[in-house]
């Protein structure tokens, strides 16, 4: 470590304990996040490149990865749109039982995901309440990727709503009025003034919902039907490999998932940082 780098970090500050705080942060992050992940990567590294690529390149693995990330991206996108709408309604309008509706948003957080999965499956199964009507339309939801998207949308909903809500509540109403006095229609005000201001919050919610969806297991396995190549998600495939005592295979798939997730979250973070800078939150 060069001396200048140390000097740069140790600027005089009124907040005491920089050293101890940073030390604790690093130890904590290592213990909770870094060491388990490193162990996983180490385990998969024991496979050797050829074996690693064989497992990862397996069509069943590829199908599962494609499904996991595809369904998660779609579900997070759906949540980004409707989560903003929900947040809008909760912040901007007052209606009877609004507090109740507000509390309901958090239910997907609190509910054991398996319960959610079973409930959704019961509803959307071909003989279920909603499923029977969809069946007459020739639409099959349960035991297909559509079912997976619905389950992931369910569990990801609170993330977007809860990140957008406070920002929308703080939004300067005068900026809207200013837009109106300048001749902007309501539509132009929403799309050119309000939504761009919410963008960083929407992205945060989107990233959280996406991360949650990629790792989701409990709710999906009930509604997915888990047909290999069709509706088998990656986390399930990892569990299957574990049950076969194929630990190396499981960690190989996990390592790939980790790599993709990490790069996606990194990209979203970069977009956020860029929009924050434009926004001027950081001056």
């Amino acid at each position, binding site marked *: 470590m060069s001396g200048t780098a140390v000097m740069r970090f140790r600027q005089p500050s009124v907040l005491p304990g920089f050293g101890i705080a940073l030390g604790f942060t690093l130890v904590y992050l290592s213990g909770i996040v870094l060491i388990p992940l490193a162990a996983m990567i180490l385990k998969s590294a024991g496979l050797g490149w050829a074996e690693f690529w064989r497992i990862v390149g397996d069509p069943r693995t590829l199908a599962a990865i494609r499904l996991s990330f595809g369904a998660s991206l779609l579900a997070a996108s759906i949540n980004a749109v409707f989560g903003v709408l929900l947040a809008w309604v909760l912040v901007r309008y007052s209606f009877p039982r609004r507090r109740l509706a507000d509390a309901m948003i958090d239910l997907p957080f609190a509910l054991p995901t398996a319960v959610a999965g079973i409930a959704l499956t019961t509803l959307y199964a071909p003989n279920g309440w909603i499923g029977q009507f969809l069946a007459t339309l020739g639409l099959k939801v349960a035991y297909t990727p559509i079912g997976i998207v619905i389950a992931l949308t369910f569990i990801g909903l609170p993330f977007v709503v809860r990140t957008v809500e406070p920002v929308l509540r703080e939004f*300067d109403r*005068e*900026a809207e*009025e*200013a*837009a*109106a*006095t*300048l*001749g*902007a*229609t309501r539509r*132009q005000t929403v799309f*050119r*003034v309000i939504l*761009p*201001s919410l*963008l960083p919050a929407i992205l945060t919610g989107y990233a959280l919902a996406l991360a949650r969806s990629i790792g989701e297991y409990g709710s999906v396995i009930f509604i997915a039907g888990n047909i290999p190549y069709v509706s088998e998600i990656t986390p399930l495939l990892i569990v299957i490999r574990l049950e076969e005592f194929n630990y190396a295979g499981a960690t190989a798939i996990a390592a790939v998932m980790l790599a993709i997730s990490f790069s996606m979250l990194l990209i979203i973070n970069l977009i956020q940082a860029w*929009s924050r800078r*434009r*926004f*001027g*939150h950081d*001056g």
Partner: protein
Amino acid sequence: MDIRIENISKTFGQHPAVNSVSLEIRSGELIALLGPSGSGKTTLLRLIAGLEHPTGGRIFFGDEDASRKSVQARNVGFVFQHYALFKHMSVADNIGFGLRVRPRAQRPSRREIRARAEELLDLVQLPGYGERFPAQLSGGQRQRVALARALAIEPRVLLLDEPFGALDAKVRKDLRRWLRELHDKTGHTTIFVTHDQEEAIELADRVVVLNKGVIEQVGTPDEIYDTPASPFVHQFIGEASSLPVTLSNGEVWLADRATGLRSEGNGEAILYFRPNHIEVVEGCSGCIAGVVVGSRRVADTRRVEIEIGAGRHRVEIDLPVGHPAGEGSRIAFRPTRWRLYLSGASENAAPRKVAVHA
């Protein structure tokens, strides 16, 4: 653009914020709406802009009834106290916003909008600031950008809601003078809201004094200051002291003592005078006398607080800095310019003025 306001009212729930106000504003005038908080001045401004819908009454822009028109159609430039700039847009984009949202047929080209933004940045003395974001500007600069944005749409009237309220004293003074120059240069009909009487008097062609949703007085700064139409205006504009007096036999009496002031009329009244409009008198046959209870230095004079008579009414007068009167000493004076308002009438009703001695 002439603006005519006819019996405009606005009620929020049970509370009348603006109560049947009528006002005429001539084209090119710089008008101040002045009043304490809750006087309805901002509501009146927002009614003119169309940001509030009147409960009753009408507003004319020229000969055209604007009261049924939407905000968008009124074509007003509105400047908010807290700037209300679009934070995610550059300064140039903020200024061009009003032009960019026009329907395609009336929308200038991208290059024209750009040029107009540059032109306005020059006008508000921020050349070269187009690429910055609002967060990178100081409060005074932001407010000038907000003004440029409002001017970009070539508004028929410019409305400013406490435009300098969020700025510190020095910047406020500079911007005040600058706004006056800008107004003289561009000639927009301008209405601004303020609670600062000094700002209103220094800046405006005419001042509208509002209190509790009604107009107390409309006049030039001189008229408002020298001939206030009501006790409220007398107290709100500048410094003023008041004393309850009795009128009889053509004289003004304070309790049972003659004040030396002469006036027609009979009955209870309230005497108003300003601290600097007095003369100190020696011996007291016809004067107001009391005991000094406190004093403080105000600019070039000493402002002395005096407690008068059994009623223990306190008034303030200005004395020369070197005047020997100390705390507890007795002093006698007589107002040189003063006004009387018949009391008994409730504060809301316009008190009848019975005598003016200016």
